[in-house]
């Protein structure tokens, strides 16, 4: 059953259209603490439109069954829906379906890769996996801007293999220092892992440049696309990264599902991470043979309804058009950055107003702890994120322990951003600071 939409396909987003979009998100219509909710925390988790909720419900109402096993009609329908979801995601990000591995979330996707590389380093996967083995003298490079999910798995992989983990530093604004990157990425670099859009700085990484540095030395690349796939057109084949990770709940989909993208040649060669049911061809008492990728990486019962719902979320975004999504959020991001910059005592993290920025902005408010900022705003119905946003190294580099972040999506309006800025201006005076 195809979803129906309130908005015309591919139209530029306007305030009127966004009001229509909001009708698809009943959650947004509620009051919080006596004020209309302004949900400015989509960078942490986004809301699901009715179309997505209906898709998951309809799957359970009409087609729920075990996938990739059983010959009955429902099992075939469920399998078809599951694999159709994989094709939908692949098409959305410029990938082929066999290059998509379902995971529980992006964090698990990074771990899948690092454990697979660790297994290859211990000799699993035979000669075809051997080129992926890491050891002493090899370097893994990531950036100081990363989410912990793109740091800690590499720390653990380095510890397991004896490889060294190095970081591309950030500038005073919290931006990737590309000049330093040039000096850090060298002959010993085997893997370069970096984010596409910073969840704190809101900056958009120059992927082409970093990939070119990695290519020169033959290093593999992993792109954290959690904050880009929901917000801008993404073509992984064109970006030419080797791996990428995604998360459904940040792009109008359900929690509990994410994906690892890997170029087919890599996924074919690498050994599995989780093992067990579904991912094998022949099993004896002493050994097993793996299915081809991506199935060899999908052990156990899969997240079928979540995959179906995620595909519906992707169709919703596709219907709007990612260029239009990006343009709308760029406008909101600029409104946030410019407004925050005007507030006495506020220090904007990331690109200055006027420079390219995604639809989010984080900042430090002199003298007031982010938890107090968030509490004040919550009392006026404004939902923002406070804390270190799973990016402690970035905050430490900026000389702060935490920050406050407002992040927008397709359902946010300039009026909501104005409300946020007006309330934010009251915070320091409330806590006893004159401007």
């Amino acid at each position, binding site marked *: 059953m195809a979803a129906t939409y309130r908005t015309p396909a591919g139209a530029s987003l306007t305030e009127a259209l966004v009001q229509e979009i909001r009708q698809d998100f009943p959650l947004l219509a509620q009051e919080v603490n006596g004020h209309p909710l302004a949900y400015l925390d989509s960078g942490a988790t986004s809301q699901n439109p009715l179309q997505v909720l209906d898709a998951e419900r309809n799957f359970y109402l009409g087609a729920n069954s075990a996938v990739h096993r059983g010959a009955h009609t429902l099992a075939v329908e469920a399998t078809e829906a599951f694999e159709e979801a994989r094709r939908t995601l692949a098409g959305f990000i410029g990938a082929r379906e066999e290059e998509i591995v379902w995971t529980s979330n992006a964090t698990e996707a990074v771990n899948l890769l690092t454990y697979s590389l660790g297994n290859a380093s211990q000799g699993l996967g035979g000669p075809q996996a051997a080129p992926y083995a890491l050891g002493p003298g090899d370097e893994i490079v990531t950036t100081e801007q990363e989410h912990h999910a793109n740091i800690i798995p590499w720390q653990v992989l380095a510890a397991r293999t004896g490889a060294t983990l190095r970081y591309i530093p950030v500038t005073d604004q919290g931006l990737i220092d590309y000049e330093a990157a040039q000096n850090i990425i060298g002959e010993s670099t085997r893997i370069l892992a970096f984010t596409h859009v910073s969840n704190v700085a809101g900056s958009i990484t120059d992927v082409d440049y970093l990939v070119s540095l990695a290519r020169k030395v033959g290093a593999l690349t992993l792109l954290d696309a959690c904050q880009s796939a929901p917000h801008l057109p993404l073509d992984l084949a064109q970006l030419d990264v080797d791996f990428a990770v995604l998360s459904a709940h940040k792009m109008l989909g359900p929690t509990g599902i994410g994906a690892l993208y890997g170029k087919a040649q890599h996924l074919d060669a690498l050994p599995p991470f989780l093992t067990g049911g579904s991912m094998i061809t022949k099993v004896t008492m002493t050994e097993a043979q793996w299915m081809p990728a991506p199935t060899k990486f999908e052990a156990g019962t899969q997240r079928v309804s979540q995959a179906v719902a995620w595909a519906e979320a992707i169709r919703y975004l596709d219907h709007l058009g990612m260029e239009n999504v990006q343009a709308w959020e760029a406008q909101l991001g600029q409104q946030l950055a410019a407004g925050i910059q005007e507030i006495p005592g506020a220090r904007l993290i990331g690109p200055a107003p006027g420079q390219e920025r995604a639809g989010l902005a984080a900042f430090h408010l002199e003298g007031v702890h982010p938890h107090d900022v968030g*509490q004040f705003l919550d009392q006026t119905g404004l939902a923002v994120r406070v804390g270190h946003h799973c990016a*402690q190294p970035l905050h430490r580099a900026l000389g702060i322990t935490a920050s406050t972040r407002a992040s927008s999506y397709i359902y946010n309006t300039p009026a909501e951003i104005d409300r946020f800025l007006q309330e934010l201006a009251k915070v320091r005076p409330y806590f006893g600071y004159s401007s």
Partner: protein
Amino acid sequence: MSGLEQLYQQIILEHSKQRSGEGLLDPQGQAAATNHQYNPTCGDEINLRVILSSDQKSIESISWEGDGCSISMAAASVLSDMAPGMSLTDFQALIDDFREMLRSRGQIQPDEEVLGDAAAFAGVSKFVARVKCAMLSWVAAEEASKEAAQASA
């Protein structure tokens, strides 16, 4: 009183800015112990030192260094004002009362006779996410006082 004003009582706002006890004191030979507490969800942390009196039966001073929200900083400051001169038994009783009030989800009316300025934190108990902020320094003080007493016993 709005929710915000219940949480941020004037006493709390004042203590969060004019902090008592900030800066670790030198024990100068007195029985003392230092305890570190960290709240991983928000990054708030405190390093707090309890110094005992020369007879080791009461609190001589509480001093600390830390970084955190107004609630956590004010709680450390209020405790630093209240604790000096208290017997170890009374000190533990105060911490128990404070903890009970904070965990009551707004159900326990504080006894200002007993809790003094710490009664201002009653409103925090309605904000479940902030209870840990208020408790951070008090837990550090509880641990440090026990350790100091044991070490000197």
